[in-house]
């Protein structure tokens, strides 16, 4: 049986990708960020040893246009290409998919009343790409894990509620656990934390909110799932509203979780958060 072995929350920010590609790992402004991811990268490689990563992200006007915008879209292919977002393609390998596992997820989730758009082709932009090389080492043409991209509309309102994203995560857990093959699955929720990129309030960051979010998503995710978009966007900035994608990850974890690592850094225009969780087996046994 497949099982979820870790949940990761991680911001996605284009400048991190540029810093990575330009090898700024020891640049004083960037070193804290790369050092902050290192313990999680090590944990994933040495202990978690994932086979497949379900990564929840949003596209940024790259692969999906507004002519027909899906609320949720799931990749069901064997391969996903790295997109050109306007600056040229990043020097990262394309990603291997797991079409059989995707097909199972699609069947299970649609049967569970999540009516997803299913994609045989999906080019991936920084929403997907940012976290991957910070969490998994790759060489020139290969990744050590297969991926299943799960797109969420967080750019054109109406966007799904936090509650809906949380429930989708719960459905993903049920779907994973009904897959007969012994796959080790990691769910990554990306986006946020606080940031605003439009209007006179451009550059808004709310560190207190972000730090609270990193704790509350562990202890009381249901309360976060009940926040309105206006409440989240007022506190965390308009584009910070995308933090609901972390709730999909959290919904896929056990009710009680254990924090493996937490990191926060807000150098420029985004509160960059990283959270690594695993199910709290002790709490489950006790319950």
């Amino acid at each position, binding site marked *: 049986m497949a099982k979820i072995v870790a949940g990761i929350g991680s911001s996605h920010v284009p400048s991190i990708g540029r810093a990575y590609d330009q090898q700024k790992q020891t640049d004083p402004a960037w070193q804290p960020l790369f050092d902050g991811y290192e313990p999680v990268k090590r944990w994933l490689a040495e202990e978690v040893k994932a086979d497949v990563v379900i990564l929840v992200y949003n596209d940024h006007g790259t692969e999906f246009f507004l002519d027909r915008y899906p609320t949720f879209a799931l990749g069901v292919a064997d391969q996903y290409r790295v997109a050109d977002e306007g600056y040229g393609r990043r020097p990262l390998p394309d990603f291997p998919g797991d079409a059989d596992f995707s097909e199972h997820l699609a069947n299970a989730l649609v049967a569970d009343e999540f009516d997803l758009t299913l994609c045989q082709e999906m080019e991936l932009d920084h929403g997907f790409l940012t976290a991957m090389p910070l969490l998994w080492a790759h060489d020139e043409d290969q990744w050590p894990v297969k991926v299943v991209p799960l797109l969420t509309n967080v*750019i054109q309102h109406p966007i799904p509620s936090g509650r809906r994203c949380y429930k989708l995560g719960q459905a993903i857990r049920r779907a994973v656990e009904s897959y007969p093959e012994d796959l080790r699955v990691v769910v990554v929720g990306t986006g946020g934390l606080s940031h605003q990129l439009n*209007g006179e309030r451009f550059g808004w960051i709310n560190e207190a909110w972000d730090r609270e979010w990193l704790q509350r998503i562990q202890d009381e995710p249901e309360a976060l799932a009940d926040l309105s978009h206006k409440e989240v966007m007022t506190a965390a900035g*308009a584009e910070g509203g995308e933090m609901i994608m972390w709730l999909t990850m959290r919904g896929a974890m056990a009710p009680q979780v254990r924090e493996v690592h937490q990191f926060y850094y807000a150098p420029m*225009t985004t509160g960059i958060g990283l959270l690594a969780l695993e199910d709290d087996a002790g709490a489950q046994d006790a319950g």
Partner: protein
Amino acid sequence: MSDNQDRWGIPGTYVFDLRLSRRGYAINKMCHSLRLAENRDLYLADEEAYMTRFGLDDEQKQAVRERDWLRLTQLGGNLFFFLKLGATLGHGLYPIGAQMRGESLEDFMKTRNVPGAT
């Protein structure tokens, strides 16, 4: 306050909802096309013709000519799309943001925790 700000009630913020998306559809469609390198070349060769081809109205064309990103936002442009126009023109996120705040880039950078992390 703009009409969009009145609807959402968040000052200094233009929530990209269906009404704003409808208003800015031509801008965003044009910007989306600039993910392709050959279209970036076409744009730079003749900006006016490119804008006309995508059906921008006069106000939208003027905002593009003036590189007035705040105005473009008010007219329905979405930053994630018009960053591709910025990339084509050599305008990065931070100058665009500073302009929307009504600040010089230098003043904007002074408000950041680690201005070297760009």
